[in-house]
C-alpha cells in the first residue's frame, strides 16, 4: 500500500525530534500543585472541595460546569491550601485549586499496577460513563471532553475510529514514546473506542518517521489477536495530525465547513487519549498525569516526563537542570501550534504535551514586507483558505467578508506563516479574523435561539411576528 497523506496544502518543517530516544520517566512530585478548573474546551468545572480538605490521588476536586465540561481530579495526595485566581500559561486569571503534597496515597478503587487488562466490559453506556467520570479529554491539543465526542448526535453513524499517532508537530515525542512503551494499553484503548462506536474498523495512523512505533504496534495487535484494528503508515506532512486532515488522509473524505468529523462517519482520538481511555475504563484511573516532552536544541537534558497535572513549569525545568541562558522563549506545545508561556510559575494542565525552549536566533521574526502575491500561503493552507486575503480583511475588521471567505475554518496550523517569503504575520491576523467570524456566527445563533425561545414563551399575533422577524 502506498503511503497516504492529505490532499491539499501542508508543509514539511524541520523535524527536530531530538528527544525520541528518551524513555518516559516519572517526574518526582512537586511540593505544591495548582490544579486549574479550566483544563478543557467548554464550561469551566466547579470546585467541590474546601480549603483544608484532605484529598487523595484520583479524587474528584471539581465537577463539570455544563454538558461540554469535564471532571477534574486531584493529581496528588495532600491538603487543599487555597482555591482562588492564579495566572495560567497565558497569564489570564483562572481559578486554581492549590494542594500541598503529602505522601502519595491513591483513592480507593484505582488499579495502580502495571498488569494489562484486556477483557473489555460489554456495556457501552457504562464505558462512556467511566470515561466521563475519569475526566478524559482529547489530549491531542484541543482538550475536547471525550465522552461528548463518543456520544454522536442522533442520526449520525460512525464508520471508522482513527487513532492519531501522527505527531506531525516538530520536536514532540511524547506520543511516539507512549506508542513504544505503552503500545498494549493504547491498542486496548483503541479496541474500547472501536467497540463503543459500534464495532467499526479502527485505524492507528502513524507517520513514517516512526518505524519502531509502527513495527511495535503491528506486533502488539498480532499478539493480542485483535481483528479490525490496523496500522496505517502515513507520509510525513504537517498538519497531518489535524482532525480534518487525518480523515482526508485515511478515509479520503472531506469534512465540510463548520461540520463535525462524525458527519463523514469518522471519530478521531489521539494516542494519549486512547491511553487515558484505557486507564479510565480498565484501571479506574482518571487523568492525573500526562507525558510531557521537554526539549529544544539549546536544552541539553531533553526528556519525556510523566508529569502530574498542575505541576508548576519552573519545577519541571529546574528538575532538568534549569533553563539554559541562551533560551529566550518557552513554548507550551510544539513550534507550529504551541503558544509561548508568559509566566513560568503557571502550572501544567491535562493538555500540556510539551515544553520547548528556543533561542533568540530561532524565535526571531524576519522583517515584514509587502505581499508579493506569490500565493505560497494559499498553496500551503490545508483548509483551502486564502490567508493573504483573510489577513487583509482581518486588518480592516470586515467581518462579513471574513465569514464569506470561511475564516472560521482556519485550524491555526501556521502553514501560511511558515511559507510566507515576505514574513507577514499571516496567522496572527487570520486568527484574529477567525475570532471575529466565529463571534458573528455565535451571536447570530444566540439571537436565533433567543428569538425561538421568545416565540415559544409567548405566542404572538401574526402582525407582531412579522415585525420581530424584521428586527
Amino acid at each position, binding site marked *: 500500500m502506498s503511503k497516504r497523506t492529505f490532499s491539499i496544502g501542508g508543509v514539511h518543517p524541520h523535524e527536530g525530534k531530538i528527544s525520541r530516544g528518551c524513555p518516559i520517566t516519572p517526574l518526582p512530585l512537586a511540593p505544591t500543585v495548582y490544579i486549574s478548573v479550566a483544563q478543557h474546551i467548554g464550561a469551566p468545572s466547579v470546585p467541590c472541595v474546601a480549603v483544608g480538605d484532605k484529598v487523595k490521588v484520583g479524587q474528584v476536586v471539581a465537577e463539570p460546569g455544563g454538558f461540554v465540561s469535564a471532571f477534574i481530579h486531584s493529581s496528588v495526595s495532600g491538603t487543599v491550601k487555597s482555591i482562588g485566581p492564579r495566572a495560567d500559561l497565558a497569564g489570564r486569571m483562572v481559578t486554581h485549586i492549590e494542594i500541598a503534597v503529602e505522601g502519595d496515597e491513591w483513592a480507593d478503587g484505582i488499579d495502580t499496577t502495571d498488569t494489562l487488562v484486556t477483557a473489555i466490559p460489554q456495556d457501552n453506556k457504562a464505558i462512556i460513563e467511566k470515561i466521563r467520570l475519569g475526566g478524559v479529554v482529547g489530549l491531542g491539543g484541543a482538550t475536547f471532553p471525550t465522552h461528548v465526542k463518543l456520544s454522536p448526535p442522533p442520526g449520525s453513524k460512525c464508520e471508522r475510529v482513527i487513532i492519531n499517532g501522527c505527531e506531525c508537530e516538530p520536536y514532540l515525542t511524547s506520543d511516539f514514546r507512549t506508542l513504544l512503551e505503552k503500545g498494549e494499553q493504547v491498542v486496548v484503548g483503541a479496541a474500547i473506542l472501536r467497540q463503543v462506536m459500534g464495532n467499526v474498523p479502527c485505524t492507528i495512523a502513524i507517520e513514517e518517521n516512526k518505524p519502531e512505533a509502527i513495527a511495535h504496534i503491528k506486533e502488539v495487535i498480532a499478539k493480542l489477536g485483535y481483528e479490525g484494528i490496523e496500522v496505517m503508515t502515513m507520509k510525513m506532512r504537517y498538519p497531518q495530525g489535524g482532525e480534518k486532515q487525518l480523515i482526508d488522509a485515511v478515509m479520503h473524505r472531506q469534512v465540510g465547513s463548520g461540520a463535525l468529523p462524525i458527519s463523514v462517519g469518522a471519530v478521531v482520538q489521539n494516542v494519549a487519549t486512547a491511553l487515558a481511555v484505557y486507564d479510565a475504563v480498565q484501571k479506574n484511573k482518571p487523568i492525573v498525569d500526562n507525558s510531557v516532552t521537554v526539549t529544544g536544541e539549546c536544552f541539553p537534558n531533553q526528556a519525556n516526563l510523566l508529569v502530574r497535572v498542575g505541576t508548576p513549569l519552573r519545577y519541571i525545568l529546574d528538575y532538568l537542570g534549569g533553563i539554559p541562558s541562551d533560551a529566550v522563549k518557552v513554548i507550551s506545545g510544539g513550534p507550529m501550534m504551541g503558544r509561548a508561556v*508568559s509566566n513560568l510559575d503557571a502550572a501544567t494542565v491535562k493538555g500540556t504535551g510539551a515544553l520547548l525552549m528556543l533561542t533568540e536566533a530561532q524565535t526571531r*521574526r524576519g522583517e515584514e514586507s509587502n505581499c508579493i502575491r506569490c500565493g505560497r500561503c494559499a498553496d500551503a493552507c490545508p483548509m483551502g483558505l486564502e490567508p493573504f486575503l483573510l489577513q487583509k480583511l482581518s486588518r480592516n475588521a470586515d467581518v462579513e467578508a471574513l465569514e464569506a471567505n470561511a475564516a472560521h475554518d482556519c485550524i491555526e496550523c501556521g502553514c501560511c506563516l511558515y511559507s510566507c517569503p515576505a514574513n507577514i*504575520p499571516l496567522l496572527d491576523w487570520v486568527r484574529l479574523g477567525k475570532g471575529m467570524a466565529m463571534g458573528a456566527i455565535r451571536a447570530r445563533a444566540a439571537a436565533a435561539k433567543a428569538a425561538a425561545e421568545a416565540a415559544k414563551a409567548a405566542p404572538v399575533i401574526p402582525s407582531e411576528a412579522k415585525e420581530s422577524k424584521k428586527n
Partner: protein
Amino acid sequence: MSNIIIWTIAVVTVLGLLLALVLYLVAQKFKVEEDPRIDEVEKAMPGANCGGCGFAGCRAFAEAAVKAPNLDNNYCPVGGNDTMAKVAAILGYEVKEKAPQVAVVRCNGTCAARPKVNDWGGTASCAVKAQLYAGDTGCAWGCLGCGDCVNACQFGALSMDPETGLPVVDQEKCTACGACVKACPKKIIELRPKGPRGMRMFVSCVNKDKGPVAKKACSNACIGCGICAKTCTHDAIVVEGNIAYIDASKCKLCRECEAMCPTGAIHGINFPKPLDKEAIKERIKIRNQKAKEAAANE
C-alpha cells in the same frame, strides 16, 4: 477624402444625439426622488465620515436624520451642538444640547509602575496580542501599549507616550467619535463629559482583580479599597468588582477622592491649581470630627 471626414462627423453626431436621447429618457424613467434636505443636512455635517454617530458616514447620517421623527437618537459628536443646531434648523426639529465629551484613557500603568514580566515579540497590534494572552505585564486588564487606538483615531488626537507606554489624548483634537473606544480590546478608553473648563475626575484603572493581586501587578492600580466612596459626599463613586467608578453627572470636582486615594489611581485633570493633599485631608478630618460630635450630641 473630405467626404469621408464629413460623413464621419455626421454619423458620430447623429449617433451621439440619439444615444443622448436614450440616456435622457432612461434617466427620466428611473429617476430617484430624493428629499433635497438630505443634501442640505450633509452639507452642514463636518464631513469626517468617521462613523462616530453610529452611521456609515455623514451621508448615511443625513438620510437617517431626515427620515427620523426627531433627533433624539441622532447626534453628531464631532460637530457637536453647533452642527446639530444647523441640522435641526434645516429639518425644523428641536435638538437637546449635549455636554461635549472627550476620550479618557483609564489606565495609568506606566512602565515604572507596572513592570514587564515577559516580552511580546509578535505583531504590533493590541487586538492580536489580547487574543493570545493576558499581556506583557502582570496586569491582565490594562493597556497593551501597541497603539490600536492611535491607529483608529482619524483626528490625530491620540499618541503613545514613549515614557509611560500609554496613549495620551489631545483634548483639543478629540471629537469623541468613539473609534478608539471600539478599537481597544481591553475596553480601557471611555467617553466622559469634558467638564467645566475641561476639569474632570476619573478612576484611571480598570483592574478588577482583588487588591493585593492588582497592587502586585501595578503600583498605580485601583485596589477597590473603597476609601474614595466613603470620602465622597456627593454619592458619585461606586466600588463594584474591586474597582471604583466616578459618575461624572454627580461629581462636583471637589478632588477629595483624589487626595485620599492610596495608590493614586484617581486622576483630576485641567484644574488650575495643583492638588493640595494635606489641606484637603485636614478639611475632611475636621468635617468627620464635627459629624462625630454631632452624632454624640444626639
